[in-house]
């Protein structure tokens, strides 16, 4: 089987991967790069557990063919959060507010939070709901996630 080689910047590090045809970005991250933090809840773009940032934009990595992600692309996963100040603030806020229960949706959810706060310093309620509408959580009822995002917004670093 012919593979394609791609070089990406994942969580700030350069990675080169050999991708067989049909490899999903989710599998490339989990299996080729060993970044198991990102989860698969549906494989159909519906649950958002597989959300990562591709050049700063949240995407569902189960729907993206890894070969289509060009060389030089910047990818950020849940494992990369703690390397950023905002990421650490978000993680702290999630912990403080009790936003994670089973935790399975969280790697995707928190990436959506990060993408939102990176662009919108003080999101209102509607913006928060909109930004996480693609992330399904069956445990929390979302209340504490909203609280965590608000708390993190308050503490977000000045540029």
């Amino acid at each position: 089987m012919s593979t394609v080689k791609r070089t990406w910047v994942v969580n700030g590090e350069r990675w080169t991967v050999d991708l067989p045809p049909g490899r999903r970005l989710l599998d490339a991250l989990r299996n080729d790069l060993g970044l198991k933090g990102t989860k698969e809840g549906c494989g159909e773009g519906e649950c958002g557990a597989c959300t990562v940032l591709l050049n700063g934009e949240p995407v569902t990595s189960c729907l993206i063919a890894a070969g289509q992600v060009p060389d030089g692309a910047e990818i950020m996963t849940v494992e990369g959060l703690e390397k950023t100040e905002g990421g650490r603030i978000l993680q702290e806020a999630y912990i403080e507010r009790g936003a994670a229960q089973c935790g399975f949706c969280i790697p995707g959810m928190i990436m959506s939070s990060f993408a939102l706060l990176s662009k919108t310093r003080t999101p209102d309620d509607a913006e928060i709901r909109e930004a996480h509408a693609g992330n399904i959580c069956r445990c929390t009822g979302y209340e504490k996630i909203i609280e965590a995002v608000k708390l993190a917004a308050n503490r977000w670093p000045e540029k």
Partner: protein
Amino acid sequence: MPATVQTRDPRWVGQGIPRVDAEDKVRGRAQYVDDLLVPNGWHGHVVRAPVPHGLLRGLTPDPAFDWSRVVVVTAKDIPGPNCIVSHDRSMPVIASDEFLYAGEPVALIAAPTLRLAREAAEHLRIDFEERPAILTLHEVADQFKHNDPALVKLCGQTIRKGDAEAALARAHKVVEAEYTAGHQEQLYIEPQGLVAEPTGDGGVFIYGSMQCPYFIVHELCEALALPPEKIRVKQAAVGGAFGGKEEFPTWLAGYVALLALKAKRPVKIVYDRHQDILYTTKRHPVWSRYRTGLNRDGTIAAIAVDFLLDGGAYLTLSDVVMYRGILHAAMGYRCDHVFVNGLVARTNTVPSGAFRGFGAPQAIWGLESHVDAMAAAAGMTPHEFRLKNCLVQGDTTPTGQVLKWSVGSPAVLEKSLERCRFDEQWKKCSRGKPGAKSWYGIGVSFFAHGAAFTGDGEARIKARAAMDLDWLAPGRPGGIVRVSSTEMGQGALTVLSQLAADGLGLDLSRVSCPFPDTALVPNSGPTVASRTTMVVGSCVYGAAGKLKKALEQFAGKPIASGKEFDEIASAYLNKHGRLRVEHLFVLPPGTQWDQKTFRGDSYPGYSWGCNVAEVEVDPRTLGIRVKKITAFYDIGKVVNPVLAKGQIEGGLVQALGYSVMEKIGIDRKGRFDASRMQTYIIPTMQDIPEMDLDFVEFPFDHAPPGAKGVGELPMDGLAPAIANAIEAATGLRMRDLPITPEKLYEHSQKNLGR
């Protein structure tokens, strides 16, 4: 009266400390089954019956396929009796001569890749003779109503208090109605998944996503022909369960264990979402019929209920789901004449199973809808009627149990009504007023939830917890909680750690609570029935107290500080090695229960709740928007208020889905018709209402420090509160869940002639 008297001020209990596993979870480090490396592991795949009912004539392998690359398991490979030992022995691990639902396993295949396993499955021909099938609740409800002998009863049970028929005949008014609800999918976000590995001694090691490690051991040991100690089961991080990982993982464990033992290597099965929805248990569909009698003064003369559950193809746990259902079907109100007739009927569908609430939400859906109908017939408002008739301390339940302690009624009801100004808001309801731009309605429900197992269940399983004094790290002694209760997101590890720390009188850092492994923990019972904090937690608390006493005896002096503990514990460990102490749960003194007649103390205690829902309905589209929920709960002593609130919020949102969104039926081939996340719609962040939630504490003194169940309670009462609010908004009484705009429209055509 309390079994153990608690004197010292608790330190950790009552504090909303962050979860002990939160850090791992927000960093993406928690390891769920699919994150674990399985060296030399193969992938398993299940070959399934294509139609809902048939006689299996044989399996014919395609000779053109190279079968040497895979391992195939059929019923013939099962070393022991082909059954899962649940509440009966009717369900085979793999169908052998007859199958009773579409998707029932007929063979298992393992291969180095999942693709190859699936390919092999396509080369295995299933020869069968199709038989007639019953597919829906409506069919069995019709059979029931017409006394049709074709109805297959999986089990039945009644509750009798006084003489309901005679009281109905005498009643001033009689109110009758039927209520139904369909399946509900648990939809934990982590799909089902397990790994099995053969162990050197002929046994098997099973690990992955599950609620009840000992269920797997005890339900499979016959089929695998292994003594229980040769089946070792360990939990991995669980990405949600809600009952969906209570009995189902035993089936899956059977598949992976049989494959692993035959292939002589580890085998893993992780379902994809489509398989997970198609082939795992759901909440039982329900049909209930209420006939109630009212006295002239607005009190309740009689309650007669028929309560029918669709159990699917096999009994599994359905008897106990029905028991919990009938025990809640007439609960909560004073009435001397009660008759409840409970029944589980067979359909040719995936066996229905455990889902948060376990029969109680289905019962309370009918009851609390019907209470509004009774209130109207009595010429009273829903809240006046409830306040007048609700059970309070000293009253007697339908099984004759006297509510002697820890009764959060009428407190939860009064507080909720006051908080949302129900009386004022009730007068503003639209009642389908023509010409309005939007219809507003408010509705209430009030309920109790039996905490822990039904009847003498707790006495029979003899739940135990252990505390080990051991090294947490070199030079660092501490207490290790050893229980079979699992962490599935509800916060068990955190709450049990808090209780252990208080029992020891130590800082949380001297306690650890690892995932259960049946090789290391006693059986503290399954992680179900909202019993973990109350029953297992109380045992942990007791065991920790005993551990402390033992150390104090060893030292000959009290332990007053962490430093002293470290010294004494280290000395003990160096001299004697590990110390294990256990504590057993005891039912309150005087508990009486007759499992035959269902008379007596059906639960050691009850949690109480009240939900108020406020809705807006668009008169043009009939779109329903739940705007606000106000709720008070009595869950006894609140061990961790942040986690408890999180349970309530999450449970209410699941209940919101059950009420107005989550719709799944059976198609003509006998399969679930909404088998993907695209079609099975659950609430997102954009659907959630404002929630105003609070607790009133009526501690349960017989299980120090006094917690009662919380997990299931928020699932119980929201659907009827919403239906009641929708009637107040539109004038339409909806009696079938979920309540959708389409159903509202159909109903309005019949009722209003619009």
